[in-house]
């Protein structure tokens, strides 16, 4: 039996230079594990430990395998392909195919949303492709040694549910505190196996939307600044500007 955790290695969105036509230049961008993924790996490690199961990381591209191994994954399965520009649908299909390669992987943990896309779409597609229920936005995951309970915050309640069987659980930023690996973890990680799989072996395909137009959005705002050295005057200037723009 195993707990599977999906994680992603992506460029820091802050480092991408967006051209007027919406094309992004990622050269020079630092890459790292994104979004809630450090939390996902920590939750998977704790869950696997408590259930006496293996924690298996799955990821696209193999550069990041060590990162997860040092944080508690027992082994990693990576697809050796650059899927940077691939659609979310294809990525989810590939992750689902990887999860299926792990025997007895009832529990699949994933970050709720990634910063680079901000789409929060892969978890629901992954649950759909695997044909199992999903729980999104989990703020807490616990086990009593056999069963898993998941806490979520809905609009008007904090809901705790019990999961008996295969499910995909997407964890939010506050579900656990990721631990910082020590030297020992990093060294141990080197001994742990990384299995790479060719994309063609998985035989997946997925539809993508047809892109019609694309443009940069943040070019619109041109700040009019007031000097707050004289707070009263700056405040009056701002209020006057907002009034004439009919914003207040």
């Amino acid at each position, binding site marked *: 039996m195993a707990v599977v955790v999906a994680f992603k290695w992506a460029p820091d969105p802050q480092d991408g230079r967006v051209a007027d036509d*919406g094309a992004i230049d990622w050269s020079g961008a630092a890459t790292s594990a994104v979004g809630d993924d450090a939390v996902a790996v920590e939750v998977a490690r704790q869950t696997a430990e408590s259930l006496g199961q293996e924690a298996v990381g799955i990821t696209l591209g193999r550069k990041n395998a060590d990162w997860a191994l040092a944080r508690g994954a027992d082994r990693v399965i990576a697809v050796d392909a650059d899927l940077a520009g691939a659609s979310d649908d294809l990525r989810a299909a590939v992750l689902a195919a990887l999860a299926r390669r792990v025997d007895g992987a009832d529990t699949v943990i994933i970050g709720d949303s990634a910063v680079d896309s901000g789409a929060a779409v892969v978890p629901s597609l992954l649950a*759909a492709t695997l044909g199992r229920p999903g*729980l*999104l936005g989990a703020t807490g995951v616990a086990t009593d040694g056999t069963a898993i309970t998941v806490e979520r915050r809905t609009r*008007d309640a904090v809901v705790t549910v019990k999961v008996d069987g295969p*499910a995909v659980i997407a964890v939010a930023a506050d579900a656990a505190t990721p631990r910082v690996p020590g030297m020992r973890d990093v060294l141990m990680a080197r001994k742990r196996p990384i299995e790479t799989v060719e994309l063609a072996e998985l035989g997946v395909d997925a539809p993508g*939307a047809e892109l019609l137009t694309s443009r940069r959005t*943040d070019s619109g705002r041109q700040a009019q*600044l007031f000097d707050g050295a004289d707070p009263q005057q700056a405040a009056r200037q701002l209020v006057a500007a907002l009034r004439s723009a009919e914003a207040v």
Partner: protein
Amino acid sequence: MTFNTWIIAVDNRIADLLAAAATVPGEVHVAVLGDRDLAEELARTDVADVLWFEPPAGSVVEEYAGQVAEAVAARKPDVVLTGPQDAARLIAGRLAAQLRTPLITSVQSIEADPPVATRLTVSGSVEQTVSASPLLAVLDSPGGAPEATDAAVTIDQIVLAPGTTISMVSAVPRAAGADLSTADRVVAVGRGLAAKTDLGLVRDLATALGAQVAGSLPLAEDLGWLDKDLCVGISGKQISPALYLAVGISGQMQHMAGVTRAQKVVAINNDPEALIFGKCDYGIVGDLYAVVPALVSALGEPRA
């Protein structure tokens, strides 16, 4: 040409989904996952009919995403619209798999004939228009409760087979937070605030503006000075107020992605180099502890 349009509803917030659906020629149907009251409320809206999926009492709706998607897919939709609620996104994911069509999220608007969606990506910094058939769109803002019509349309009830994987343990009610998604004005505060006790300053400004208070992730989550529901940004809410005033917020992309649809963005920050001054319409470079009280009194002064 006419289209077979479906709205997936997991609560009553569908006003904007209805408005978007109304731009598509053809009949609009609603698939509702929830209790009878919800189905009846949505039957009194401007739609052709309601397909009501009734979950067994006390069960967890997420468990039924597959059954709902299967029934909707069997009705061969051309356009499906839903909101960003967790259960709605799960149903949308299942529909994508069933219909073999891409799932398009962060959608701001749609156009019909042929169906096209306008969406934001890369944390709000790129706007794209995309097409797909069928078009399966998750809108960022589904809108509030719909306006009721005089007559109710027919409700077709589907009894769901009880799920076996997820069971309810407990549901502890909590005070429903202010709904930032529909707020007209928002004052947000960040790490520039030195102490929790200084929040009063920000609340005074919000009151003077008739605005709701929100915050950056560090305030709402790490420090816990505000309720978590009040976090604005990629991990929190994506909002579209007429006025967004950021106090002591640096303007990191993960935060600003939450306000790309605000009409006017105002920043107060004592660092002239703060990122936010490149992403706002008006700014005051100064100490919030001096500027905020001055702003409250300036707002109280009569128009010149």
